[in-house]
């Protein structure tokens, strides 16, 4: 009997710990509006958990900015990694009183497409993916796309400058690396910008491209980058989520440079491994935070154009390189000035950065082959 009891308790412990990790959506508190009527209210639904060091964390920061700068009432709901929870949560939240319902990443596209038409009086903001506006009436959905190709253009320009420079760790070969998560259009959009950016600085630069085919295998990411560095690559750009962090360990092991993505990857290791952080010259960021703040501001002014997708780039501060102490210390003054100049040209439209989405897979492949070593 006693054993049975222990068994039951163990099972209960398992269940409780599984729940603690957050599969179930939090129930928002009832909104009874006691003197809060005038406040705008926004809720952020995350398909996943915070701590991804990427879009979801950035979106969370955006919500904090909306709260601090615009004085909105906000709520952030982590919906966990179980997709079967996402649509019910979205439906629940849609029947509550919110001025803006914000969610994002491609995980949520079909859910929004399903739910938004059922609540035509509600307003939705979808980041990093767009609903298919031709599929139905999405006049209450505003989609934000990021021109990651523009940010990556700067990363490529920096990489080409570094590999051709006489920086202490740069070698003779004009070879730069790219570590992608998957051979998919969104990753290749980074790649296209990266290659084009490198080519403007030095047309002779060659790019070694590897795809991990996983976003959560840092060991494999590291191994691929070691292979790249051993070929003569002296700076690489990782666009592979958790797998990409493996690049930083490879960079440290070989004493060569890396460029991060999505989050400021130098800051991740600033305290625990400063030697590694020094090698991460910068990171290319999608500023989900800035774009959400912008959307909320426009919404407040009644200028947010629902019913369409907008792609935001350098001009809107929605993408860009991380300017931190490591960037300022390790990237020489003249390179930084040149990057600034290139960024201005992109902002003014003088430079048009091509996109993988417009080029299509065949043209991307051609471009990739044209810079292969």
């Amino acid at each position, binding site marked *: 009997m006693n054993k049975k009891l222990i068994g039951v308790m163990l099972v209960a412990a398992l269940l409780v710990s599984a729940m603690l990790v957050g599969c179930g959506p939090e129930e928002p508190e009832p909104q009874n509006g006691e003197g809060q009527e005038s406040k705008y209210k926004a809720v952020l639904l995350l398909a996943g958990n915070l*701590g991804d060091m990427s879009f979801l964390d950035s979106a969370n920061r955006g919500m904090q900015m909306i709260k601090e700068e615009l004085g909105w009432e906000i709520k952030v709901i982590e919906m966990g990694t179980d997709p079967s929870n996402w649509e019910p949560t979205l439906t629940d939240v849609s029947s509550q009183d919110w001025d803006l319902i914000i969610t994002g990443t491609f995980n949520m596209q079909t859910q929004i497409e399903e739910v938004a038409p059922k609540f035509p009086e509600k307003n939705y903001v979808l980041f990093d993916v767009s609903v298919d506006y031709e599929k139905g009436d999405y006049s209450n959905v505003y989609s934000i796309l990021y021109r990651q190709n523009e940010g990556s253009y700067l990363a490529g320009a920096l990489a080409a400058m570094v590999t051709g420079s006489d920086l202490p760790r740069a070698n003779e070969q004009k070879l730069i690396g790219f570590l992608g998560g998957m051979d998919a259009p969104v990753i290749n959009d980074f790649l296209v910008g990266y290659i084009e950016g490198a080519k403007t600085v030095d047309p002779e630069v060659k790019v070694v491209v590897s795809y991990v085919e996983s976003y959560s295998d840092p060991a494999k990411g590291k191994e691929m980058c070691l292979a790249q560095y051993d070929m003569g690559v002296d700076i690489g750009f990782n666009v592979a989520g958790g797998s990409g962090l493996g690049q930083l360990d490879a960079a440290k092991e070989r004493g060569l440079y890396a460029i991060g993505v999505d989050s400021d990857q130098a800051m991740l290791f600033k305290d625990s491994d400063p030697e590694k952080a020094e090698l991460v010259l910068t990171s290319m960021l999608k500023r989900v935070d800035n774009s959400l703040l912008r959307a909320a501001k426009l919404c407040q002014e009644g200028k947010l154009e629902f019913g369409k997708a907008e792609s935001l780039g350098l001009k809107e501060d929605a993408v860009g390189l991380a300017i931190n102490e490591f960037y300022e210390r390790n990237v020489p003054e003249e390179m930084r000035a040149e990057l600034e100049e290139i960024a201005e040209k992109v902002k003014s439209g003088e430079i048009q950065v091509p996109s993988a989405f417009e080029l299509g897979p065949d043209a991307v492949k051609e471009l990739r082959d044209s810079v292969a070593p």
Partner: protein
Amino acid sequence: MHPLLKAIFSASFAASILRVTTPILFAALGAVVADLSGVVNIALEGMMLISALTGVIASAFTGSAWIGFLAGVAAGIVVGLVLGYFHLKLRTNVILAGIALNLLASQGTVFLLYAAAHDKGVSSSLPSKVMPEIQVPILKDIPVIGAILGKQNVLTYLSLIAVAVIYLFLYKTSFGLRLRVVGENPDAADSVGISVHKVRFIALAISGALAGMGGVHLSMGYVSWFSRNMTSGRGFIALAAKALGRTHPVGAFFASLLFGFTDALSNYMQSLRVPGEFIQMIPYVVTLVVLAVYSGRQLKSGRFSNE
């Protein structure tokens, strides 16, 4: 020569094979021990993950890589015993218990990671230690071999030693014999006074310890931090390596080496403009082919028809 081909025929490529093989080999040995005792341990993936995190946390708080290593191994043993408790004492289906443990590990480690590092993605804020790389005297001075085997992580050497130790344990000790008897025919073992439960508990503990070493290698050897679900299916690949190696430690070693080789090859060949998915497929195609050839030979020799 093409720079990539040059890279593939280099000592650093061979060294990379050993690195890639290490975690798979540890887990595959764990699978062999559990399987020979008659328990299919599909919780290897979860064991590795829990050990990888435990090692990082323990080493960060004690400042010692070795204490981290021991804590990781201990965590593997504990998970092995938990699996044993559910399967042997509570009579849960071992596959279901294994799946439950894997799910628990996948999300539970994120929970613990958040508790320890206030981060749900990566443990980079913890000052965790890394198991040292060591140079083997004499060996490191031999050309080619020295470049491959001369300087590796201490856990890579340990994994190679483990192959021999597990082989001797299973086939040259009386306990190893009992373990195999229990796996082969538990009723017969019981009738001669061998405690089936005790033997299987010990086998699962050893299996957990080995998987734990593989996990620690990932977070404290391969890279220097823990990140969520960083095992990325290696525990399951280890099960395939066990099957391919015919549930024998030496067979599992060669099977793991084969997986390590194809994986390392795919890492290096990526830039040869062969589609990534295609290269990623190689280990699995090799497994299928080898299994087909192997069972084909068995069919021919009539071994199946006798059963």
